[in-house]
């Protein structure tokens, strides 16, 4: 059974449904990527997994435990880490304080986790006493990912981590995400840069109008002429 199994999700923010029978799976230590056109419900699907909207149907199972009824905060305690697309750092707090806040729920000594984050993103160690709001876009994303890693999540969810960063920084971020996955953390990611994201994805989900349109390995989706023509621009 998959580590994360979000099956038949149907629901939305208000009366109308945005997601229609949408299913997402992530295996342990693998990277799953959600791509699709604007307004396809990519972010909504991820928020549904994280419990930020009410599902009318379907359920979310994490590591064999049904968490469909839990609040986002409780899901964090269960091992989910979430990096929102925007406003994902505490701007007037230092990099180190941002990481400390990520570990707020932990009572144990988290200094080794912080060292791991600094090993992953060495630039953050140099800037640990600088306010997160003064960093560049790419560095801020690193702080955001680092903050989420501080809870030692088993599933890390990233909502468009490369939005608004330069191509070079994007490649570097993707490299780091692969490194995170190698440590055994499962990753679920929404991406606008579909081609690059599918290149690093073990599993790809193409959503259209809140429903699964194509589901396959990243490589297979990249090779599929239909997917290439309709979503990847040839």
């Amino acid at each position, binding site marked *: 059974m998959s580590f994360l199994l979000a099956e038949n999700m149907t629901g939305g923010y208000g009366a109308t449904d945005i997601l229609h029978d949408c299913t997402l799976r992530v295996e342990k230590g693998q990277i799953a990527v959600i791509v699709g056109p604007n307004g396809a419900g990519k972010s909504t699907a991820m928020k549904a997994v994280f419990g930020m909207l009410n599902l009318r149907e379907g359920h979310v199972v994490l590591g064999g435990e049904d968490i469909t009824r839990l609040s*986002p905060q409780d899901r964090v305690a269960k091992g989910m880490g979430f990096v929102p697309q925007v406003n994902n*750092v*505490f701007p*007037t707090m230092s990099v180190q304080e941002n990481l400390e*806040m*990520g570990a707020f729920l932990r009572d144990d000594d988290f200094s080794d986790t912080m060292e791991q984050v600094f090993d992953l993103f060495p630039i953050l160690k140099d800037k640990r006493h600088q306010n997160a709001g003064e960093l560049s876009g790419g560095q801020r994303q690193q702080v955001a990912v680092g*903050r989420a890693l501080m*809870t030692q999540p088993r599933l890390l969810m990233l909502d468009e981590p490369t939005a608004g960063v330069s191509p070079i920084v994007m490649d570097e971020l993707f490299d780091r995400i692969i490194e995170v996955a190698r440590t055994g953390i499962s990753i679920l990611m929404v991406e606008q840069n579909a081609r690059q994201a599918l290149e690093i994805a073990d599993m790809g989900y193409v959503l259209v109008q809140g429903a699964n349109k194509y589901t396959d390995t990243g490589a297979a989706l990249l090779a599929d002429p239909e997917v290439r023509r309709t979503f990847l621009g040839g």
Partner: protein
Amino acid sequence: MDILNALVAVLNYVVIPASSYGAQLALGALGVTLIYGILRFSNFAHGDTMAFGTAFTILFTWAFQAMGLSLGPLPTALIALPFGIAVTAGLVLLTDRMVYSYYRRVRAAPVILVMVSVGVMFVMNGLTRFIIGVDEIQFADGARFVISAREFRAATGLAEPLSLRSSQVITLVAAALVVWALFWFLNRTRTGKSMRAFSDNEDLALLSGINPNRVVAVTWVIAAALATTAGVLYGLDKSFKAFNYFQLLLPIFASAIVGGLGNPLGAIAGGFIIAFSEVGVTYAWKKVLGYLAPAGLEPEGLMQLLSTEYKFAVSFAILIIVLLFKPTGLFKGKAV
């Protein structure tokens, strides 16, 4: 000698009074700015929270005086202060539970919360008057002066007197201690950092597992402590009158906004800016200029820019100027 006399006159009539008034405003503004940063509304009841806290501190002071407790040269009110803070904290927590929590739950717009706080202000004001009355109350005891005017003149031989009241020294020392403790709490402790995180980015704070109810409760307790301390220091320095604290609201808000709402450092700077402008503009500079101006050029008028009755116009003018030209304040707070 003339320069020394002028210096002493400025110290005595401007620097010393403005410093202690500035410290009182800074403490008040810190409370306002903290509430604004974390609960995201301008708390109009803050002035009357000060009055309520001071009233209870006075009641405890009387009780301790009746029991024969005394701090010697220091006012008895300082022993009563923690008890006054405790009662005030209880009242604001009760108010939060009964009034504000509902508006948070329905996610009311900030302007609605401001109006709600105006209602709370009237209730607190009535409560204070009901409990302690509307008369002017002097509750300072202990030594009155650190340096008295007569001693100073006898010791230095200068024409100008210099007096330093103990309430002024206590105000400055207490304010410095409170500010130090507050910054230590906000920057060094886990709870303090979680409050700053909550103020910075509420959604992300929730995602990080920070308990909003706890942050709100701690904020109210700190605001009550700041308000009571500021109110008691003001009352010791001048006198207690239930209505006076309502009038302090304007300079306090002006201080918080000049410094940048939500920014504690700004609140302190703002307090002193407002206090020094208010005292400086309403002080009659004739005497000082008389010492400094060359012979024959002494000013004939009072050299007073505004009469003291208009002192609130100063905060108001500064407030308007800041809102027009730098709405985020000098220290980059949140835009109003």
